[in-house]
C-alpha cells in the first residue's frame, strides 16, 4: 500500500508550501471582531434614533385617531430604524458566530446579547444628543429620508378629527389668521384661545400643525399650535414640561395628552 502521507509531504516540499504566517490569522480574527463591533455600533445608532423618535412621537394624537389604530402605529413606530437595528443585529450574529468560540453560543443568546448591547450603547448615544443631531442631519441631507418622515405628517390632514397643517398666509388679527393646508385649500383659523408651543409666534409663511376643532367649511378653531418640525436642541425635557404646564392651564382637559 502506498504511503499517502509520504506522497503528500513530497508535494508540500515540491510546491514549497509554507504555513500561513501568524499575522494572517491575527488579521482575520481582528477583521471579524471589528465588523462585529461595527455592527453593534451601527445597531446602537439605529437604536438611539429609534429611542429619539419614540420619545418625541406624537403619542397624544392617539385620541384623535381612535378609528384607525394602524394609522397611529405607522405614525409613531420608527420602522425604518427598527429595520436597520434588526439588520445590524443579524450582521453582528453572523460575525460573532465566526469568531473562534462564537459557535458555542446559541442564536437566541447572541441575538439577545447584540440587541441588549445596542440598547445600552444606543441609550448612551441618545443621552448625549447624538441621535437628535443625526436625525436632523439625515433629514437635511437625505431627500428620501426627509420624504419618509414627512409622509408621516400626512396624518395632520384630517380636520374632521381635529388635525390640520399648513402654512400661515395671512395674519388677519390677533384672533384670526389664514393658512394654506398641505392640499392647497385656504382655512380661516380662530386662534383666540390657542396656545403656541415653544417659542412659536404667528408669522407669515410659517409652517405649523394645529390641534383643534373644525367649525365648518374651511373654518377651524385652534387649541394648540405646534411647529411643523421640532426645533433642533430645543431643550427636550424642560420644553415638554413647560408646554404641558401651559396646556393644563389654558386648554380644556380633553385636549391634553395623558
Amino acid at each position: 500500500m502506498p504511503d499517502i502521507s509520504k506522497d503528500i509531504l513530497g508535494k508540500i516540499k515540491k510546491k514549497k508550501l509554507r504555513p500561513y504566517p501568524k499575522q494572517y490569522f491575527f488579521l482575520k480574527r481582528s477583521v471579524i471582531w471589528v465588523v462585529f463591533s461595527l455592527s453593534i455600533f451601527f445597531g446602537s445608532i439605529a437604536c438611539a434614533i429609534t429611542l429619539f423618535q419614540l420619545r418625541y412621537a406624537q403619542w397624544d394624537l392617539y385620541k384623535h385617531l381612535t378609528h384607525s389604530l394602524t394609522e397611529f402605529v405607522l405614525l409613531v413606530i420608527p420602522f425604518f430604524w427598527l429595520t436597520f437595528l434588526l439588520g445590524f443585529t443579524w450582521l453582528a450574529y453572523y460575525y460573532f458566530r465566526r469568531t473562534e468560540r462564537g459557535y458555542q453560543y446559541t442564536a437566541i443568546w447572541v441575538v439577545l446579547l447584540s440587541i441588549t448591547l445596542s440598547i445600552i450603547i444606543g441609550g448612551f448615544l441618545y443621552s448625549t444628543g447624538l441621535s437628535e443631531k443625526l436625525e436632523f442631519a439625515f433629514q437635511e441631507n437625505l431627500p428620501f429620508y426627509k420624504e419618509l418622515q414627512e409622509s408621516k405628517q400626512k396624518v395632520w390632514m384630517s380636520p374632521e378629527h381635529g388635525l390640520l397643517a399648513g402654512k400661515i398666509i395671512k395674519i388677519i388679527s390677533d384672533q384670526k389668521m389664514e393658512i394654506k393646508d398641505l392640499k392647497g385649500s385656504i382655512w380661516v383659523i380662530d386662534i383666540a384661545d390657542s396656545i403656541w408651543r415653544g417659542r412659536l409666534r404667528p408669522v407669515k409663511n410659517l409652517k405649523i400643525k394645529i390641534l383643534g376643532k373644525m367649525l365648518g367649511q374651511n373654518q377651524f378653531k385652534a387649541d394648540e399650535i405646534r411647529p411643523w418640525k421640532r426645533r433642533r436642541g430645543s431643550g427636550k425635557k424642560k420644553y415638554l414640561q413647560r408646554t404641558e404646564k401651559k396646556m393644563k392651564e389654558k386648554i380644556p382637559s380633553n385636549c391634553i395628552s395623558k
Partner: protein
Amino acid sequence: MNDYKNMPDEQLVQLSLNNQDYFYYLMKRYEIKLLRYIKRLTTVSPEEAKDIIQEIFIKVYRNLNGFNPKLKFSSWIYRIAHNEIINQYRKTKLCSSIISLNIEDESNLIDAINDSIEIDGAYENLETAERVRKAIAKLPDKYREILVLRYLEDKSYEEISDILRKPPGTVATQINRAKASFKKIAWRHQLDKEIIK
C-alpha cells in the same frame, strides 16, 4: 520514530511549524482515521478519497499557525476534514443517496444507539443489514454526519460541537432527533419485526 508516537499532537504541531518533516508523523496519525471518515460520509472511490485527504492535509499544514491550542487537535483536523468533504460535495455532489457504510459500521452504529431507541442487534443477516444501510442512507445529511461522529468516530458532544461549529446543546438535540429519525425510517423499512423490539 517511537518518540514521536507518544508525543501529543500539539507538540507535533509546534515541531511541524519549524520542520516540515514532523508533519509526516501528524499525517500518519490521522491518515487512516480520516480516510475512514471520508468513506463513511461519501461514496467516493479510494482514489478520490486520496485526493480529498491530500487537500485536507495541505489545508491543515497551511493553517497550522491558526490552530488554537485551547481546542483538541483532533477536533480541529476533523473540522477541516468535514469542511473539505462539504466543499467537495458542493463541487461534485459525491454524496449520493447510498452511503458506503460497511456491515461492521452498521452494526457499530446500531449497537451504539441501541440503548436509547431500543433496537437490538439482530441485523446479522445480510438482507436486514441492507435495510439498515438504506435506512441510514435515508437520514438527512446533518443527522447522518452527527451519528457517524458520535457512534462511529466515537467523539464526545464537546468534540462534535467543535467539529461542526454548533453549540453543545444543539449537538445533543440533533443526536436525539437523528436517533428518533433513524427509528422512524427503520419502521418504514419494516425493520420493526426484525430489529426493533
